[in-house]
């Protein structure tokens, strides 16, 4: 297979002019999203440019401590984003987020890298960083949806939750239906996506692999592996986070501490 055709920076910048079409539509319908879109695209371009330089350096160095440190930075940003977008106060959730995500990555990431892909050196930057990064991105998305749903539903349905406790439910029994609702909300879209993957469009990882010169038969194996790894990691991290945060979020009487909810 041929290696990927490079894109010149000039060609790339010119192609961003295509954004004029969506910007026009957003502006015409007075969505007030034009400025946010321009800022987001500029940020994306600058961030990815810097990440490209930085990752090139990390891949060349391939030092395990540097690789782990970079993943820790990604983890910190993930935790902060989950709290902010889930409308929760980070100080109550920091420990549960970190512990649940580190545990999930340690189990799922290293299982797939060590057993499925079978790379000899698990912290090899070329595999460890992009695969862990993909998992963290998806873990972040699932936890935002699940955490927001779980805690805000208990807060909004306070009487139903208290009715369960007053009827003799333990805290685990009282939160049970709210956990179910949070899991449904977080994972229904992923399950639907897995069912149709490849029929409508080729997924990102597979596309990247094919563009990079890999045979499609290899690319699909990585894609299947990643979908399974990501889904498993998402579910494990969401459940662990909910279970671990319990001791920080509920008081000795089983009540949700309302100060954990932002706004």
């Amino acid at each position: 297979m041929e290696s990927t055709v490079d894109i010149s920076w000039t060609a790339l910048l010119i192609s961003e002019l295509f954004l004029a079409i969506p910007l026009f539509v957003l502006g015409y319908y007075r969505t007030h999203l034009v400025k946010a879109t321009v800022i987001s695209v500029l940020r994306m371009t600058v961030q990815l440019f810097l990440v490209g330089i930085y990752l090139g350096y990390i891949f060349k160095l391939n030092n395990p401590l540097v690789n782990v440190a970079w993943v820790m930075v990604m983890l910190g940003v993930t935790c902060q984003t989950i709290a902010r977008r889930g409308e929760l106060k980070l100080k109550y959730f920091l420990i549960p987020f970190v512990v649940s995500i580190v545990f999930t990555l340690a189990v799922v990431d290293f299982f797939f890298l060590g057993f499925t892909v079978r790379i000899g050196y698990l912290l090899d930057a070329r595999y460890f960083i992009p695969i862990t990064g993909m998992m963290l991105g998806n873990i972040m998305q699932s936890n935002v949806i699940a955490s927001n749903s779980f805690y805000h539903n208990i807060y909004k349905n306070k009487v139903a939750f208290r009715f369960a406790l007053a009827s003799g439910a333990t805290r685990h029994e009282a939160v049970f239906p709210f956990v179910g609702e949070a899991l449904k909300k977080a994972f229904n879209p992923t399950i639907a996506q897995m069912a149709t993957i490849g029929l409508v469009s080729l997924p990102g990882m597979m596309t990247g692999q094919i563009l990079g010169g890999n045979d499609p038969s290899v690319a699909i194996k990585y894609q299947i592996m990643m979908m399974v790894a990501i889904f498993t990691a998402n579910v494990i991290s969401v459940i662990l986070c909910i279970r671990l945060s319990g001791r920080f979020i509920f008081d000795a009487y089983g009540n949700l501490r309302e100060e954990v909810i932002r706004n």
Partner: protein
Amino acid sequence: MLFTLHNVAVAYDNKPIFSPVSFELNTGEKMAISGPSGKGKSSLFNVLLGFEHRYQGEVFFDGKPLSPVVIQEVRKQVAWLPQEINVLPTQTVREFIYTPFEYQVNKHKRPSINQVESRLEELDLKAEILDHTIGSVSGGEKQRIGILTVLLLQRSILFLDEPVAALDARMKKKVVDLLLGNNQLTVLSTSHDAVWNDHCDKIVTL
């Protein structure tokens, strides 16, 4: 004495929302707490069930001051009917009734379908209502479903928040006889209803 309250008032930012009350609730007694709407009557239930800690005064259950351990005892002996039954929108009446019996502490008391249908009949509800969602039933039906559920829990103490507010005169009389006419039950209630209050042994006004 089951519950003893000394100068208790719910207080937000250290400001009581009603004048402090003191009373004792003894086994078999039927007590009503009355007062204007919005005075905080329902919040007293939250204090006694461990949901509200912002209060002044002292509360005792069976001679012991409230604590996480004592509250667990309270919750095992009390059945609470809130003013509004607020459940997850997808829940059916059947699920609402049977959910408390999925908790470990209530499993041995799980009612048979015959027992449930018998209670439904007692409260003028048809068996078909079991398959309706809680959101689709009327206020009066919802209230009777709540009463039915607390009765099925077979607890000796009932906390009832406006138990007859949505009932017509005939059903109100039935519920008054069912709950206040039962010597085995201790009842603490909030109510604006004169018929209900007239049948209580004690009335405390906030």
